[in-house]
């Protein structure tokens, strides 16, 4: 039977020759992540009579969602995590490091063929590196801590082929929002979403992760981008650890294949309150905006900061605007300082918060009030997402659209600043 590369990864993890879609397997996990929202993991671990973590070297605790702690409850949770990590000998990734999802590739831990399970819905991001990576619930992860395994239903695979070439001012985020606008939020539920085609091959690793992280909003269980030279070079730059690249059999049949030509794609924005409410930015330009948020695992990487800073160089945001920038990792902060982006952003009027998830999850660092509108480079615009107010509105866009909007004070299409005047 012809198999997809992801099926081969799963088969290897289950110690089987082959697996079929629909089958339930027990798979061994190579890397387990826990983020700081889920202290309940440790409670479930105890309730399941767990004593020692099966392999502490494979367990990472990321204090990234609410870092540094915003209040007493969070501080208590962080304390419990630190004690657990100490006691068990697993990796503690403390509040100074940044977002777990962006740290894995920096640390050479997102690699082709590896099985990754994290208590976070955006875990499919690592399919950009040819890994199998799925988000699991807290109790699920607690069970993995006990014996290193989890149950998985073998998913079908859909292929999204992106043809053509992105124009200037059009970024990976625009491509992802466009696909969501075309296909909605459910077409990938329980499935592997593979991204392929010339547009993807042209992208850097950071850009590819924008597609795979946004696939979570398409329902994906995991994602896949076939490792190529860009992937292999990037991984080898970050680690000497060995990895296996599985090949999809040539006669493998996808459950569904979609094809889009993105040559004429214009900058996109997802308007409230759903990720698939995609529009051309130019069609809804002019909406007054109170805050721009440049950050998150999706839009707070070095390429995003660079795109924003290059546009903001020498410009200033108006007094009616707040620009909150949260770089994804410490490494990105350092490089932004070296390259001068940090200075440019500060001079433009940005508030730069410590690396981590920040305002994306609405826990700290840039929460918006009711009746306010925010243009965000993150990945969700659900009601209440950025702090709890159901009357707040979040517009999802690329870092370029975000930066231009920050300067004009209203939703603005890149390259058309001032056009709506």
């Amino acid at each position: 039977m012809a198999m997809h590369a992801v099926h081969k990864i799963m088969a290897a993890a289950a110690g089987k020759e082959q697996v079929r879609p629909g089958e339930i397997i027990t798979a061994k996990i190579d890397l387990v992540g826990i983020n700081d929202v889920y202290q309940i993991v440790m409670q479930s671990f105890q309730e399941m009579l767990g004593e020692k973590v099966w392999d502490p070297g494979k367990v990472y605790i990321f204090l990234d969602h609410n870092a540094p702690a915003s209040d007493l409850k969070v501080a208590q949770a962080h304390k419990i995590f630190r004690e657990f990590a100490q006691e068990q000998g697993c990796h503690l990734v403390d509040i100074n490091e940044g977002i777990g999802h962006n740290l894995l590739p920096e640390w050479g831990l997102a690699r082709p063929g590896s099985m990754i399970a994290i208590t976070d819905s955006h875990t499919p991001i690592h399919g950009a590196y040819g890994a199998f990576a799925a988000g699991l619930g807290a109790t699920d992860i607690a069970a993995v801590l006990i014996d290193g395994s989890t149950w998985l239903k073998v998913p079908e695979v859909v292929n999204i082929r992106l043809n053509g070439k992105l124009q200037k001012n059009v970024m990976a985020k625009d491509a992802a929002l466009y696909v969501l606008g075309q296909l909605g939020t459910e077409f990938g539920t329980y499935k592997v979403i593979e991204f392929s085609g010339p547009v993807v091959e042209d992208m850097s690793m950071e850009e590819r992760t924008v597609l795979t992280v946004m696939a979570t909003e398409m329902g994906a269980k995991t994602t896949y981008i076939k490792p190529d030279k860009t992937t292999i070079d990037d991984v080898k730059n970050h680690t000497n650890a060995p990895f296996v690249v599985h090949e999809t059999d040539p006669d493998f049949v996808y459950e569904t294949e979609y094809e889009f030509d993105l040559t004429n794609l214009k900058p996109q924005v997802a308007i409230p309150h759903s990720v698939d409410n995609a529009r051309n930015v130019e069609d809804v330009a002019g909406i007054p905006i109170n805050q721009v948020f440049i950050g998150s695992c999706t839009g707070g990487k070095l390429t995003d900061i660079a795109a924003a800073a290059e546009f903001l160089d020498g410009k200033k945001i108006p007094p009616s605007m707040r620009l909150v920038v949260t770089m994804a990792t410490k490494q990105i902060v350092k490089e932004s300082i070296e390259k001068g982006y940090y200075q440019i952003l500060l001079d433009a009027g940005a508030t730069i918060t410590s690396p981590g998830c920040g305002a994306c999850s609405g826990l700290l660092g840039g929460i918006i009030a009711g009746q306010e509108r925010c243009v965000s480079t993150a990945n969700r615009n659900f009601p209440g997402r950025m702090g709890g107010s159901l009357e707040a509105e979040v517009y999802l866009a690329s870092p370029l659209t975000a930066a231009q909007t920050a300067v004009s004070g209203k939703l603005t299409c890149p390259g058309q600043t001032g056009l709506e005047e």
Partner: protein
Amino acid sequence: MKISGKVVVYNHDNISTDQIIPGPYAYIKDMKEMAEHCLEGADRTLRERFRTVGNILVAGSNFGCGSSREYAVIVLKESGVQAVVIKSAARIWYRNSVNLGLPVIFCKTLPDTIREGEEIEIDLASGTIRETATGMIHKGEAPSEFVMNMYKEGGIKPLMRKRVLGELPDR
């Protein structure tokens, strides 16, 4: 396994886990206290209705999309919800419901026709739902054998306990 009770209807699609339990509450340690905010981001009256009207939640498609927070299942259980009938669910939320032993039936027809407060009877194994008043039968999706087994065991926690105690073989 049969579950019967009165329904609380919130027939909307794409109810995210942010709406079921908004992020800032995720650091509350006491689940009873957290459950006071159950579905607050969707409709603040729902929680009270689980007490006064019924204990089966009926909703639309892609229920539980968004963040992986398991609290989005826990707060429903803590609010007294015994079963959920929805058109479809987001993957992680569904997986959490299975692991925590909250029965979920996928049914395309019932959410559009049933009225708040009516009584239904769910036959889990076959995935059928019967409206008590009219006798009308809705054909939902039967849970897989694996999932049924999980319901019978009461979720993954009792299962793992048995494994740790050596009452079940290692996986």
